[in-house]
């Protein structure tokens, strides 16, 4: 039994135990387990850990607190379902106020001797300031959570990626290209982390994983660059984040490569991504 066979089977072992593999793949895992005592033992260990985990995490049900919680929710729902009268009163009050304001305005305009006060200018509340460091940290965290966990044998599948990227971003794959020196595109999708939504491309090569993220820009406190050409790079623990901001989108390239190498791959990946995004922004108006 070759080591690579065993490695492949162990990658599939958890989905196999979760009954999430295709019938043919599942059969090949089963066949291998019948022939390989090491993998069979590994399978047993994983089954045992699952059993223990489930046992450890199964809560002792406290029916009383459960009932209290449910009653509380039902009461809140009853309140929620009974807002009509209150809403009518509120709308009635608002309508009356509006009529009063209109009446007063009309009366004042009709009496020019009295100065007309300028209408109050509505000042929208300032959107929360999002620190750039926070955005970079979220990008690194999403790189760790999402990109680094893809199995080593995960390969690019055009149909899957086109579906997961949604029609708006599916053409990005051809725009950016699938091969960049040693780095090959293995995955593309839309994912979210901490309420940020990312368009996420994952490249692999030389034992490293590189993420390209595109996210709507919410850096309200940051001046918008009119000509985004410069790539900024910051370091966060073992990770580098190279980024460009169009004012409406932020593109970042994240990896654990040395600073110079991350910047080099970013310089390969960012221009095509930037052109794609700017075209998209132009089309959206």
């Amino acid at each position, binding site marked *: 039994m070759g080591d690579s066979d065993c490695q492949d089977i162990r990658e599939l072992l958890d989905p196999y135990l979760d009954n*999430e593999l295709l019938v043919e793949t599942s059969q090949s895992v089963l066949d291998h387990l019948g022939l390989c005592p090491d993998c069979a033992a590994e399978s047993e260990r994983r089954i045992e850990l699952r059993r223990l*985990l489930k046992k450890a995490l199964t*809560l002792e049900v406290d029916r009383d607190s459960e009932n209290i919680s449910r009653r509380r929710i039902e009461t809140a729902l009853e309140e929620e379902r009974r807002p009509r009268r209150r809403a009518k009163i509120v709308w009635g009050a608002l309508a009356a106020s509006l009529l009063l304001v209109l009446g007063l305005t009309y009366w004042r305009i009709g009496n020019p001797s009295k100065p007309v006060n300028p209408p109050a200018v509505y000042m929208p509340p300032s959107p929360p300031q999002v620190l750039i460091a926070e955005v970079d*940290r979220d990008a690194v*965290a999403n790189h760790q959570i999402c990109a680094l966990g893809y199995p080593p044998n995960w390969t690019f599948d055009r149909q899957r990626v086109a579906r997961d990227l949604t029609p708006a971003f599916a053409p990005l794959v051809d725009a950016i290209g699938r091969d960049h020196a040693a780095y090959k595109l293995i995955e593309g999708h839309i994912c979210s982390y901490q309420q940020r939504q990312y368009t996420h491309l994952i490249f692999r090569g030389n034992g490293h994983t590189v993420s390209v993220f595109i996210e709507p820009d919410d850096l309200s406190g940051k001046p918008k660059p009119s000509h985004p050409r410069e790539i900024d790079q910051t370091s966060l*623990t073992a990770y580098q984040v190279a980024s460009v901001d169009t004012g409406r989108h932020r593109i970042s390239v994240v990896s654990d490569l040395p600073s110079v190498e991350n910047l080099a791959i970013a310089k390969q990946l960012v221009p095509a991504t930037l052109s794609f995004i700017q075209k998209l922004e132009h089309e959206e108006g």
Partner: protein
Amino acid sequence: MAKDRKEDFDRFAFAHFRELRRVAVRVCQDREAADDLVQETYLRAWRSFDKFEPGTNCRAWLFRIFFYVHSEYRRNQARQPLTFSLDYVKESTLSSQTKTPSDVTLEEIKLAFAELPDPFRIALLLSEVEGLRYREIADALDIPIGTVMSRLSRGRQMLRARLATLSSKTGESGSLEEHKKSGRL
């Protein structure tokens, strides 16, 4: 009409109350906070119940709302978007093949599980304890199915690695069977 809507909601949504609350308690690790979030989940579910299509997966829909509410809660609570240390897992450790230790207690498993970063802990909880399918987890967490697989895979790796560390720290030996007999499992 309103009565039908209420009855439908109670029938569809409250069928999953227990599991939702159980997950909430595990995710929040605080019963009061969990109850608040479950209540908010039900209120939002009610407000958007018109958009729910009978016949689709109500459980995944509720979980999805819950995790959105939870995410808001975390964000508002601490204004601390990072849920774990960036040093927690180095890339080089990801492919390590650690063995499941045979001499771990349920308390050690709870401890190791509680220390997992949120995204991995939640994926494992939904899969291992609640028995959600990968597709349901993807819907509940609003992530691609590949990411579900990756979170589960890495979550299990981290759990095994953490248990191996705990096990080597305790320095105890003995087979699984011996510990079962001695009541350690």
